[in-house]
């Protein structure tokens, strides 16, 4: 009876085997690893291999794990090589080591081998990760979705699917998965960061800010989230809040570069070049070849009126990143200050070659050319600049000065000046008071009053030949700072470190005008700064 039963069982097994043989042929992939590995070990220790107790092949896994934790990759590989039986975990660790060594394809092979041997969640995830690292995002998504069948509520899988969709530029899908990941686990800061990034790419700034804020509430020590939050505030010109956020980020990670760069930006906005410089040193130690840092260092020197040092730094920045528009623009600006007008014009031409629609460069080129006595081209540069950006009060003012110097009729100067006043008040309305240089108004007033030859304007009547020399170089400084603060929000968060220097406007002719309350506020603003650093 029993024998029969057993026989029946065998028949059944054989039947199943026949049915499955086709399937097995397809699915049991030929050995992923080169068979030579197996063979060599066979040949060398064929005896010892089969005398081992095979049931405890996992007994050294803990040691491999500890060695991997200490990054003893060479030793791990040697150790695995001498093992006669390779357990799945050994294959897994070997794959991890390969990944650490950058051999992603080998790692993928080994992870796939792991999945064949033991289709557990962790192995499937690693296959997905390797595929994503190799840039095969579609396949990775498939693998992760397969993994989702094993574990419905694993934020890691959801997050990774989202990330892959992001790489495929399918933002809505990505967003959906990031949201799911956040639903599963609310504390993961990477989910918040990625979701926020999605919103930013979709230009939903408010949403992004809420996400970052939520993340920061859950992760009160996350430098990345606070930096993002600060950048949002910075984009909205809420500098106090921005600075607070950067300060928080730096309290927990004093050398976190994006937060440092952003904080320095705020510091420079307050005109405290010395403090900014000392902070740039930290970045400089870590990234001595970063053009953006050199650019910002250069502009710190510029606001300290150390023009030669500024030129040195900017030239290094230009050397490191020859195609950076702002470096060229800043170089031109500093050269204008040094009255090296020819150099300034050449740098501006390079800048314009990089971005043909950069209005500020044209305006500056107008000044440089007018000093090089190329009035025709200067006028063309001014007109083109205003055509590109008709709302820029500084370009308008500089044009008025230029017109004055070239003896254009007072009526057309007045037209320019009315435009200037119009856009000036507009800009004052929308931006922070501190960013606008009030002395522009004085200059405009002088220009308007000139024709009257009123006795009280005597001193200014004498000035006319010089105004460009005196005033014009200063204007673009402010202009640039505005331009930058506008351009910031458009920056991708990935390029966060590229927060360009916003030059503090320094009044060369401040004899006319007591320095505004600016500098006082600077010192007040410094307080939170020192504590945060």
């Amino acid at each position, binding site marked *: 009876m029993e024998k029969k039963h057993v026989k029946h069982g065998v028949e059944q*097994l054989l039947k199943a*085997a026949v049915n*499955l*043989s086709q399937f*097995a042929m397809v*699915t*049991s992939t*030929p050995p992923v690893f080169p*068979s030579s590995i*197996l063979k060599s070990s*066979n040949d060398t220790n064929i005896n010892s291999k*089969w005398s081992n107790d*095979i*049931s*405890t092949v*996992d*007994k*050294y*896994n*803990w040691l491999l*794990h*500890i060695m991997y*934790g200490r990054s003893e990759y060479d*030793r791990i590989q*040697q*150790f695995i090589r*001498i*093992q006669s*039986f390779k*357990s*799945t975990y050994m294959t897994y660790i070997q794959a991890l080591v390969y990944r650490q060594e950058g051999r992603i394809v080998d790692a993928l092979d080994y992870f796939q081998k792991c999945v064949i*041997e*033991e289709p557990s969640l962790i192995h499937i995830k690693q296959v997905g990760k390797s595929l994503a690292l190799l840039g095969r995002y579609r396949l990775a998504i498939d693998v992760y979705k397969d993994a989702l069948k094993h574990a419905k509520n694993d934020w890691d899988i959801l997050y990774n699917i989202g990330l892959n969709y992001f790489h495929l530029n399918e933002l809505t899908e990505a967003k959906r998965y990031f949201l799911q990941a956040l639903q599963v686990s609310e504390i*993961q800061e990477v989910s918040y960061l990625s979701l926020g990034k999605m919103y930013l790419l979709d230009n939903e700034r408010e949403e992004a800010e809420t996400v970052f804020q939520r993340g920061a509430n859950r992760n009160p020590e996350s430098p990345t989230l606070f930096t993002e939050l600060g950048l949002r505030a910075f984009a909205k010109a809420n500098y106090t809040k921005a600075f607070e956020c950067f300060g928080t980020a730096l309290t927990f990670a*004093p*050398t976190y570069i994006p937060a440092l760069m952003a904080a320095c930006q705020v510091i420079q906005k307050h005109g405290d070049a010395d403090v900014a*410089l*000392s*902070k*740039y*040193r*930290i970045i*400089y*130690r870590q990234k001595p070849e970063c053009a953006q840092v050199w650019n910002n*260092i250069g502009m710190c*020197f510029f606001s*300290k009126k*150390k023009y*030669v*040092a500024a*030129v*040195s730094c900017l*030239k290094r920045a230009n050397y490191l990143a020859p195609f950076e528009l702002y470096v060229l623009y800043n170089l031109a600006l500093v050269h204008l200050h*040094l009255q090296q*007008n*020819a150099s300034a*014009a050449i740098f501006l031409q390079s800048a314009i070659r990089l971005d043909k629609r950069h209005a500020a460069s044209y305006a500056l080129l107008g000044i440089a050319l007018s*000093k*090089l006595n190329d009035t025709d081209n200067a006028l063309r540069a001014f007109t083109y600049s205003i055509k590109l950006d008709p709302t820029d009060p500084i370009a308008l003012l500089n044009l008025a000065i230029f017109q004055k110097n070239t003896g254009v009729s007072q009526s057309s100067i007045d037209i320019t000046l009315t435009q200037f006043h119009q856009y000036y008040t507009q800009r004052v309305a929308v931006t922070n008071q501190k960013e606008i240089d009030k002395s522009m108004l004085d200059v405009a007033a002088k220009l308007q009053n000139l024709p009257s030859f009123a006795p009280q304007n005597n001193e200014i009547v004498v000035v006319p030949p010089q105004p460009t020399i005196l005033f014009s170089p200063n204007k673009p400084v402010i202009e640039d700072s505005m331009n930058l603060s506008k351009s910031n929000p458009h920056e991708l968060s990935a390029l966060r470190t590229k927060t360009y220097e916003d030059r503090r406007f320094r009044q060369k002719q401040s004899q006319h005008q007591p320095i505004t309350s600016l500098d006082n506020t600077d010192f007040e603003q410094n307080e939170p700064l020192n504590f945060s*650093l």
Partner: protein
Amino acid sequence: MPSNKREKSASRQYQEISGNTNENETDQTRPTTTTAATDTKSKWLSAHNDFVAGINTVGSCVELVDLYAEGSVNLVIADFGNILLMPKIQAKLKVFKEFSLLKENNLSDLPCAVVACYMDTLQPRIPALAVASGSAVFLFKSLRPYYKFVLPQMEIAQVEKDVWHKAREGNIDMRAMHDVLNDLHRGGTVPLTHRSLAFLQMTNTNEAHQFVEHYKTIELKRQSCITCMKKLNKNSADEDALNCLVIGTEDQHIYIIEAQAFTIMATMNCPATPSFLDVSGVYDVEFRILATCRNGYIYLFRRGSETPRNAIYLNSIAVGLERFGKNIIVGCMDSSLHCYTTKGKRYWKHLLPAQITAMCQIDYRPKGFQAVAVALANNEIHLYKDKFLVDVIQVEENIYAMKFGKLGREDATLVMITKNGGLLVKILKRTATFEESDTLHGPPKEQQVKIDVPKRTKLYVDQTLREKEQAENMYRIFQQDLIRLKLLTGKEFLKSVQAGLNPIAKTKNEAIRINAEVHGLGPRFKLTVKLQNTSSTSLTPIIDLFISFTYDENIYSLNPNYIEIPILITGIEYGFCTFVTCITDKVISDIIKVYVCRRDSSAPLISAVINMPVAEPNLSI
């Protein structure tokens, strides 16, 4: 000159900044030490340095215990020996007394943990040593083997048992066996034994056959292995009270084992394989077990529940776990040190300057000093009290295992095993005090380093001055030269296009790329001209082309020196060969020009210039 002055004042400015912002940093020679450690003397006395002790172990295999109940604490180390001589096991259990080896026992396999536990109520209190290795715990009493506890066997699927039974009787063929096991492996609820898995991995039938022949007579077993072990007091919190053993296993279980009769008192299911355990409390009252797992989670178990109460996700793999009261301190592979509450909230996180290689708890009762020591890959040991870095110890090598406690009659010693097998012992000075100071949050040390502003030369300054005077002139000349340069470039480009001199020919509807290779040492060379039709607009093949060469006939002879090109299909690279023979005796070389021409036009389509190598002389023997 003025620029130099500016430079100088700039650099002075730097010094001022660095002076102002960092008054508290005075010790420049040891930049990472804290203010607390700036007093030149270290807090530690070096008691023993043996860099050639040849000990190879991990932190869990070091134990400080009074083995003979004589008031003097022994150092017990389970030494792996050289693990790379693998089939040969050199593992030894070594007992040191006052830095000298007292006794050593051979171990049958690599130990993964050593725990000194009390397993009886006899007086005097003499502890036993429990050594976990493989799937068993070996107990040593008075350093003599006393008992071996083996983990329970795991379930094996009936089908698998049947298959191997058949195999033993010899009435199943290899193929069927493979298929059945494979099916079971894919669909089965019970994992296969390692034997079957190994069998499935075999690719060579012959080999598989041998494998089955060898194993079919051996009993089929599925057994787990121990990954970590700690002890837990059974019924009293006293230091010398009865203990139980807490064992984490490869198959994702945590067992609590009673040390008197070796029965499993409790089993817990861990979602992943535990790698480090931390145990506190008393078994009979309330206890907690923390387990860091290979999947990057920390799980918290409590009395009475089989599943974890709480899970903390680490972003990386844990390399060490310590607990102070309700604070969990865990070091991760990404060189970060985290502190969590048992609820899973993170108190703080530090990024350390290098990878963590070992961690241990420092609990110095007489002074009430509790800290965690973290050995780093940059040969430093950092001591953290709460979140503050209170001391940095410099050592000569990477530390792979550490243990703090009593040794001999000394109260506070730190035993360290280095990467290369050295044994170091340091004693904490009795006068040492650790100040809590928030040194981590001071300005980073990089802030004092000057920025290396590139210097400007005198020539530059002179040029600047000249430019100020003659800006207009310079600008005009520059513009003229620039335009002239552009013109010249354009002209040359036009010329090369017309003459077919550039390596990629582009006409309205055909684009060809040329590439030439010379093989051989001479005097006979093989010259391969590779042509590729790269036009993307039209798919019509190019026909009616030929290759011809110009060369100095006194130096080279080519055979053939005219090649007809039958057809060039888009995207495919064609190679055309000719043989070049150097016919001169002189050691000279020349250029050969290759022209690809159309049959109907006189100007070449493209051309290439080949610099021939100097030919080896013809050897006549």
